[in-house]
């Protein structure tokens, strides 16, 4: 009788210990996964902020052909996600990647006083930008 109760107690204790082990394992895994998620997002944000500062485009408008000539004067490839036509805001969405040192021509609507190329990093370069 006593031996049976001891065995019962040992079994309950073993189950409890196993459950505690499982809990800590799953808690550790969850926290680790969430930490990896946070670190990944923080790294991405830091990279975006650093690249934002380095990004440089020269935008020129060719009235004869209603084209915007976008030249990447920076060190990294730039992805143009939209062109703004101003005033009376009108947005032309696109996805065009311009390699450093290369130009890309983009058709725009004629008759606007200002055009600006918006990149995937959130920078906007107006056609009045002076190339340096």
């Amino acid at each position, binding site marked *: *009788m*006593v031996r049976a*109760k*001891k065995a*019962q*107690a*040992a079994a*309950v*204790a073993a*189950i*409890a210990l196993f*459950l*505690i082990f499982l*809990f800590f394992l799953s*808690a550790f895994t*969850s*926290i680790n996964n*969430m*930490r990896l*998620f*946070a670190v*990944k*997002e*923080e790294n*991405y*944000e830091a990279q*975006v902020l650093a690249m*934002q500062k380095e990004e440089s485009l020269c935008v020129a408008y060719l009235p004869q052909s209603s084209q915007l000539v976008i030249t990447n004067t920076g060190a990294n490839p730039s*992805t143009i*996600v*939209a062109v*703004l036509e*101003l005033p009376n*805001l*009108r*947005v032309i*969405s696109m996805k065009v990647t311009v390699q450093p040192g290369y130009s890309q021509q983009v058709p725009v609507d004629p008759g606007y006083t200002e055009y*600006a190329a*918006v990149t*995937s*990093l*959130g*920078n*906007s370069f*107006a056609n*009045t930008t*002076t190339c340096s």
Partner: protein
Amino acid sequence: MRSKKGVSEYTAVLILTLISLAVMGGLVAYAMSSGSRNASGVLQQEKQLGFEAGQVVKVVFYEQENGGTLFLIEDVGNLPIQISECLQGGAPVSCTLETPPPNSNPVSVIEPNALYALFVNSGPQGVEILTTQNVLIELTSLYSLSSGTPEYAFGTQSYQGQSYLGMTVVAFPISQLNDNSVNCGSPYDTQGYTAVAYVYFTDPHPTVSIVTDDGMEVFLEQVGSNSWQSVFNGQAWHGQGATEYQQTLNVNKNQEYVIAVQWFNACGPGMSALQITNSQLASSFSVTAWLWSSSSYPSYQLVAANPSSVPQGATVEATGSW
């Protein structure tokens, strides 16, 4: 006797097990909790950090229209954003999210690397969006098409490369202002510019700093007030080498002001630097370069009479913006 000891061990193990399970349950509840105790659990804290880093909004353009402000925004982070509320100064304001003009279709989620039009029923300053992940994103500190904060340092060749107000002096964007030769010969001895822009202040006591060779003055007018305020009261309006002046303002926070800068260079090298703290431009500076035909320079009274215009009697040389 032996039987009694066995029961006692059994009870102790049971109590230990119950305590362990209770602690475990508590820990699970703590780690997984959200809602009113946001970010209190370890998991929630990490999750919050991830969303704060992954939901990054940049304002690429904004304009005031129909009693509100249209922000053109882009999520430059890695995660989509769903707006739960728009705020101005911490108070809720109504807002609508659409695809950008000309289509303007209502949407609910901001996907990364695409532009969206957010119309907020308020002025452009102090606007924040609260995402469904409880991330608060301020929009106004990220303006880019407007010229950011009102600060610049321009000068003729001998000043270029020097540092004033923490800025390096570069050539005037309006090339005529860099031409020293026009400054010292007949018929023009004095050259200057009138620059006008719209600005908001994020603090009621911003500081205006200028460095000038020769004279400079900054004027402010709250939009609609019809009343100009001189920042330096003419103290900097005279012939001099590069000299720094500083003044603290009393302004209304988050109200739109017109800022007018007058500057002249009476013969020889010249430079003009401006820096205003706790402020945000709502437009670029619209600039007119002018020439003054007499041997002296326009009087302070003359420029103060109409701060946003070229001094009466001056000849317009060029126009541009910076």
